[in-house]
Structures are given as structure tokens and as C-alpha cells.
């Protein structure tokens, strides 16, 4: 009996251990061939050539706990399913699930990551196939449609590119004007007109105009801003962008934008506004729902907004509730004539898609990538199908059909389920915005205001030290300290408080060996620059 128990325990133990440790040799798809399916053609996408009859099942892992979307049910994905003869099964999870899949050798076909600087992305060559090699082997047409700047930006140290992102905006996109600004300084139009278009562009003007608002509209909170949470809201990089704080020193090394003298003088102006009671404490603790409520009621006369596009609903509601609206005007600006350098999603994009070494049919998955990156695929995933969801108007621009628009307004769930417009967005891009007929909305004026004010921040994109290193930890602590410092500066009771908070931040930088971190940042900027030209 004892033996039996020991035996059982041993079996259980080995079973458990082997389940953890089974590390089968990945990437051994040597017997895979496309010989009897199609011959390579550089001028035609492989999905049009492929004669594979059997439906291919593709598992697609997304490294975030989202609800997995159904595939093939709505108009958009049904078209993909039909064109490529595939079935996609989405699975979602977090880093530990991804780790279990990598270490267990049980990888899906496609992996979508959220962060270019994560260790999984930095070491993608250990578990993903390079897109350059796959294109050569299975679909040379890919190199024609993939954005060259984006491909170069995402190349790893071996010179090959493993992941392809969505919403990667290149310098050309910034210059073309198709991407709208997403940060604004807005004011209630009635207040603006009643006070004779007051000036907010200089620190003095800002403080004075807020006082003027309070005198005339005692019921309004003069100045508000999007939620702060445990960060610093729009008061660090966003405000710096409005002031045109340089991204780098003249010699190309890292510039600490948070200690820029003009920026600090603007923080003083904000502090003055706080002491004048034109900024209230509650604005620093309000959560999203409370903030939304305040905007819908028009409680704030003036606002600094990070992420305008997410506020559209609030502005529309306010417009409906009142006879006025929020408009974008020139807000905090440089006192030395620097131009605003507003930012948007950069070249690093948002979601990054990889084809793993374990992909069972890498040719098919590559076909899917090409299909989605190519213009017809882009239009399909963004707007749906011509005649079903949209039509081209007389000016040759895309316009949604009336019944589609009506369903979107009346029953958003049903609309998503039926059409799936812009839901399958893993390869989408703002470039396609240019195809759409312009529509008037609460945001139009604000986006119009920002024309020509965007400036690529690529050189300082993702330069923080590699995750998991001591430098990364120090960097993170400095960020935490910075956030609390900036808010404390705005809330300082007097000049002494302001100065001592600032000097304690400076000494915190010294304690955390910031100068060493700066060297790493400079090095990373140099690497960025080499991938940009």
C-alpha cells in the first residue's frame, strides 16, 4: 500500500513537472512547403494566388485581457474569412500567460503585444519569425505594401523586423495633415466672447484672464483639466508640447524637458492661478465619470485637455444642453517664440503583431498580414464594404450609408455585431482618414485649430531604459516623483513651498543617479535616430 502511495505521488509529481518543463523544439517547420499551392510573385499578393482548399485555422493571442472578438460573424470579418479561407480564434491574456506559452513551447500563430519596449518585444527574435524572411519565402508582395519607415523603426539589432504595428504614424503622415491633434486648450465660447477674447498665451495673461472669468462668472470653475489620477494629467509632456520645449539638446543628447526654465515659469503661473482659487483641489481627485459630468454641464470655463478625441461625447452633450460650446483657442505658449510641438501617436504605433516560429501555416498567416496592410484591406477594416456599409460620394470620398449611420445611433451593440466597422483594427491606420468625407462634429473646430502644430516626437519615443534593469527601476521612481512634484508645485501654498518642492525634486534626481540614466537615454535616442533615416 505504501508503495502504491509513493508510486502515485511520484507519477503525479512527474506529470506536474513535465507539464511545466516540456520545451519542445520550436520553430521546426522544416517539412512545411508551398510548392503545390502557388509560385511566388512579387507583383501579386500571395492570398490571390494560394490554391489551398482546406480552411486554415489561425490562433491569435492578444496580450491584454480584452473580450475576444468573434470572427466571421460581422460584415467586415466575414469578408476576410471569405477572401483568405481562414478561421481566426482569438485568445487573450497577460504577461504570465504569454510566458507560460513561450516557456511551454505552446505558441499561437499570431501574437499581438501592446508595448514595443517590453521584454517580449525586445527579444522577439527568440520566439517570432522575421517578417523580412517570411516575405522572401512566402509573400514578396508584402515588402511593397509594408511601410518602409515603420519596418525600419521596428527592426531589432539583427537588422530584421519581427513585429508590425497599427497606427504607426511616420514623418510623412505628420506632414500630410491627415492626423488630427489630440490635445487642446479649450474655452466656453460664451465666456470667450463676453470677455472680449481674453489672452491666455503668456503666464501673466493666463493668470489675469482667469481672474477676469471668476469676477464675471462666479459659478464657474475658471480652469479645469482632464483627469490626473496618480499621474500628472496634461501637466507634463502635454503642457511642454504646447510650450514647444525642445525634444533634445543641440548636440542631440537628452534634454530634461521637465526642468526647462520656461516650463517651470508656466508651472509658477498655474500655481498663481491655484492660489487665486481659479484651480480647485477637486479637479486633482476627480475620476473619469465625475470629470465627464462636469464637462457635460460646462462647469469649467477653460480646460487643458489631453486626448480631445475621447471627449467628443462630452462636448456634444454640452452643446445640446446649452446654447454654447467649447472651442479651441491659443493657450499656454512659449514666451521666447518657440513653436508648439504637439504630439500624436508616433511611429511606434499602438498594437504590434508578430508571427510566431510555431505558426502552423506561416504562408497563410503572412498572406493575412499582407492582406490587412494592403490598401483594400485597410479600407475594409476601417470602413467595411462598398455598397454594404459605405458608398463613394460625388467628390470620391467615403460616406457611410444612411441605414448604417442610423443603426450606429439607435443600437450601438447591434451595429458593432452586424458591421464590425473599425473593430478589427490590428493593422488600421490614420492614413485612411483622408478617404472619408469630412463630417462636422464637436471636435471639428478643435482639430482644425491644430493644423500644422503637430511635430514628430520619434527621437524620444520609447527611450526609457530596458525593462527589468536597475536603470529602468530608477527611471520609474523618478517618473513617480515627477508626477507628485508637478502637482505639488501647482498646489504650492507660497513661493517658498514652490521652491523647496522643486529643489527636493532636483536632489531626488541626484540620489537616483539621474545623470547615468540620462546617458542611457541619450544612447537610446542615438539608436532611434539611426532607425529614422
Amino acid at each position, binding site marked *: 500500500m505504501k508503495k502504491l502511495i509513493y508510486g502515485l505521488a511520484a507519477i503525479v509529481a512527474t506529470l506536474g513537472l513535465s507539464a511545466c518543463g516540456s520545451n519542445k523544439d520550436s520553430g521546426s517547420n522544416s517539412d512545411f512547403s508551398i510548392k503545390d499551392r502557388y509560385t511566388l510573385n512579387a507583383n501579386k499578393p500571395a492570398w490571390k494566388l494560394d490554391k489551398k482548399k482546406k480552411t486554415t485555422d489561425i490562433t491569435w493571442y492578444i496580450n491584454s485581457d480584452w473580450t475576444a472578438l468573434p470572427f466571421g460573424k460581422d460584415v467586415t470579418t466575414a469578408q476576410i474569412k471569405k477572401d483568405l479561407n481562414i478561421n481566426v480564434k482569438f485568445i487573450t491574456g497577460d504577461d504570465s500567460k504569454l*510566458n507560460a506559452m*513561450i516557456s511551454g513551447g505552446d505558441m499561437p500563430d499570431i501574437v499581438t503585444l501592446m508595448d514595443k519596449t*517590453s521584454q*517580449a518585444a525586445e527579444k522577439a527574435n527568440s520566439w517570432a519569425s522575421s517578417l523580412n524572411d517570411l516575405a522572401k519565402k512566402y509573400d514578396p508582395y508584402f515588402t511593397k505594401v509594408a511601410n518602409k519607415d515603420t519596418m525600419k523603426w521596428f527592426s531589432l539589432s539583427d537588422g530584421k523586423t519581427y513585429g508590425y504595428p497599427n497606427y504607426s504614424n511616420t514623418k510623412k503622415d505628420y506632414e500630410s495633415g491627415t492626423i488630427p491633434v489630440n490635445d487642446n486648450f479649450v474655452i466656453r465660447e460664451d465666456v470667450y466672447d463676453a470677455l472680449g477674447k481674453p489672452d491666455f498665451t503668456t503666464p501673466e495673461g493666463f493668470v489675469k484672464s482667469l481672474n477676469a472669468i471668476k469676477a464675471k462668472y462666479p459659478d464657474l470653475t475658471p480652469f479645469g483639466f482632464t483627469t490626473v489620477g496618480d499621474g500628472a494629467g496634461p501637466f507634463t509632456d502635454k503642457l511642454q508640447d504646447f510650450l514647444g520645449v525642445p525634444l533634445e539638446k543641440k548636440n542631440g543628447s537628452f534634454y530634461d524637458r521637465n526642468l526647462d526654465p520656461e516650463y517651470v515659469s508656466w508651472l509658477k503661473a498655474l500655481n498663481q492661478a491655484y492660489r487665486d482659487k481659479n484651480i480647485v483641489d477637486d479637479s486633482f*481627485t476627480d475620476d473619469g465619470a465625475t470629470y465627464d459630468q462636469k464637462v457635460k454641464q460646462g462647469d469649467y470655463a477653460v480646460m487643458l485637455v489631453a486626448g480631445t478625441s475621447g471627449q467628443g461625447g462630452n462636448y456634444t452633450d454640452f452643446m445640446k444642453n446649452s446654447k454654447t460650446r467649447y472651442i479651441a483657442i491659443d493657450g499656454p505658449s512659449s514666451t521666447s517664440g518657440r513653436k508648439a510641438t504637439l504630439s500624436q501617436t508616433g511611429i511606434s504605433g499602438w498594437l504590434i503583431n508578430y508571427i510566431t516560429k510555431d505558426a502552423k501555416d506561416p504562408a497563410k498567416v503572412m498572406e493575412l498580414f499582407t492582406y490587412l496592410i494592403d490598401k483594400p484591406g485597410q479600407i475594409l477594416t476601417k470602413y467595411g464594404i462598398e455598397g454594404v456599409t459605405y458608398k463613394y460620394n460625388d467628390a470620391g470620398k467615403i460616406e457611410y450609408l444612411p441605414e448604417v449611420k442610423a443603426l450606429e445611433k439607435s443600437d450601438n451593440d447591434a451595429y458593432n455585431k452586424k458591421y464590425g466597422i473599425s473593430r478589427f483594427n490590428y493593422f488600421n491606420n490614420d492614413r485612411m482618414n483622408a478617404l472619408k468625407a469630412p463630417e462636422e462634429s464637436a471636435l471639428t473646430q478643435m482639430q482644425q485649430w491644430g493644423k500644422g502644430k503637430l511635430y514628430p516626437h520619434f527621437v524620444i519615443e520609447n527611450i526609457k531604459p530596458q525593462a527589468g534593469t536597475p536603470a529602468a527601476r530608477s527611471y520609474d521612481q523618478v517618473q513617480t516623483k515627477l508626477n507628485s512634484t508637478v502637482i505639488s508645485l501647482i498646489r504650492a501654498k507660497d513661493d517658498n513651498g514652490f521652491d523647496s518642492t522643486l529643489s527636493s525634486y532636483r536632489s531626488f534626481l541626484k540620489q537616483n543617479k539621474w545623470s547615468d540614466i540620462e546617458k542611457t537615454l541619450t544612447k537610446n535616442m542615438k539608436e532611434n535616430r539611426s532607425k529614422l533615416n
Partner: protein
Amino acid sequence: MNTLKRLYKQRQLQLMVLPGIIFMIIFNYIPIYGIITAFKRYTIVDSMSSAPWVGLENFKLIVQDSFFWESVRNTLAISLMKLFLGFAIPIFLAIMIFEVKNMRFKKIVQTISYIPHFFSWIVLGGMLISWLSTDGFFNQTLMALGLMHKGNNHLLDPSQYWWIAVLSDLWKEVGWGTILYLAGMSRIDPTLYEAARMDGATKMTQITRITIPLLAPIISLNLILNVSGLLGSNLDQTLVLMNSQNQSHAEVINSFVYRMGLTQGDFSYATAVGLGISIVSVILLVITDRITRKLNDGHSIIV
């Protein structure tokens, strides 16, 4: 030999235990193997065998971190305050509820005191933020009572955070905490009270001489569990109520690990902190067990 024979005789019964043991081995014992990540530099693309050994490096990093010690201080402060207040008050409340003779009223009191337990911190946190804001419910009440002249936002003041965390947690959990005691009291033999009444014992004497001594095992069990959980902290509550201004007093070990370990994908670091906390917690558990033995005539509650 004798044992084996007895084991064989009970084989049907023993077999019934087996699934539970296997379950424990698979889900509780084999995962202990994962502790070795605390001594490795384990990244997301590694497996157990491929990650390099780094010895005690992760522990050194943690000990040198000033934010970590700040979070330990906050955790201990908040937990000890919760222990002193949150441990005694449910006992009082339970005795008070127990002494209520009107069944209807008793049920109403119980239901109302249980309700906050069922709300998540995400909901309660949002309510608290608005209650504690400048024009919030809390300030308005204080101003109406004349205790305050000008409202201020309490969550932005780090010196008040510990109290906010402790009292809001107490408010949420106090009713739920009475359940165990009420169950214990309902099992006390009513003849004891009858006899006491015959002998002319007052209500107070009955409570101090009958109710509390008979509740002692449950009280000490609860104390042991509470003390061993001293280093555990309420992550949900912290993440909702923390802002950049009160962070110096709000950051607890759990939120620190969450920030440093998980958002940075640093499994080794997070495991090392977790292992350290577990060891300290076990030590605390043993110490309290030794102390509470006295309460129970030398009998241990857990072993």
C-alpha cells in the same frame, strides 16, 4: 506494520481522501517550485531552466529601495490601525446585535451592516472620492455641524490618508466581521445564561463572564489570521484612492509590487517581494499562536 494494516482496513475511506491530496499536490505544492524565480533573472521569454541564477540580487535591490521601505511603513501603519480598531469593533457590534431581542430589528441591522461588504472598491472608491471632495457630503456634514468653516479635499492631504483607508475599510467590513462571532454566540448553551440570571447576574456580568470567555477560541483564531495578514494590504482600495499627492502615505507593499513588478514585467522582483512577505507572515503567525495559547489554556488553535 500495525499502521499499514490499519491503513489497509480503512482503504475505502483513505481512497476518498486521495483526490484531495492529489489536488493539493498539483495546485499547492508543485507551484512552490516557482519560488526559484526569486533567485533568477527571469524574463517573459525565459523558461525555468533558461533563466540565469542571480543569487540574492533581487532581494538586495528591494532592500536598497527607499520606496519599498515607505510602502512597508504604510502597510504596517494601516494594518496595525486596522487591527486595533477593526478587530475589537466587530466583537462589540456582534454582542450588541446578539443582545437585540426584537428579531425584525435585528435582521434589519444585520442586513444594513452587511451591505457595504458586497460593493467593490471601484464603486465605493468613486463614492469616497466625491464624499471627501471640497463640496462633498463629508465636508457639508461637518460644516452643518459647525465643526469646520471651509471645505478642503481630504484625499489630497497625505497626513489624513491612513485614517481614510482604515475607517473606510472598517465601515465596509465591520458588519461582515460580526458573522463569525454571531455564529459562535448562537452555539452558547442558553442554560448558562438562565443559571446566571437565577444567581442575579447583570447583563454586563453575563457578557463578560459567559459570552466573551466562550468566544475566546474564535477571537484568538481571528486574531491569528489578522496578525499573519499584517503585511497583506488592500490593493483595490489603494489603487482607487491613491493620487500623486497622497502617494507617500498611500503606497502599500501590494501596490508597490504591482507597479514595479507587474507593470514592468519583472517576475523575479515580484516573486522575491512575495517570498519575503510570506516568510515574515509565517513568523508572525507562529508568534501569535504562541501568545494566544495562553488565552485557551495552553491549547493551540491551529495545530
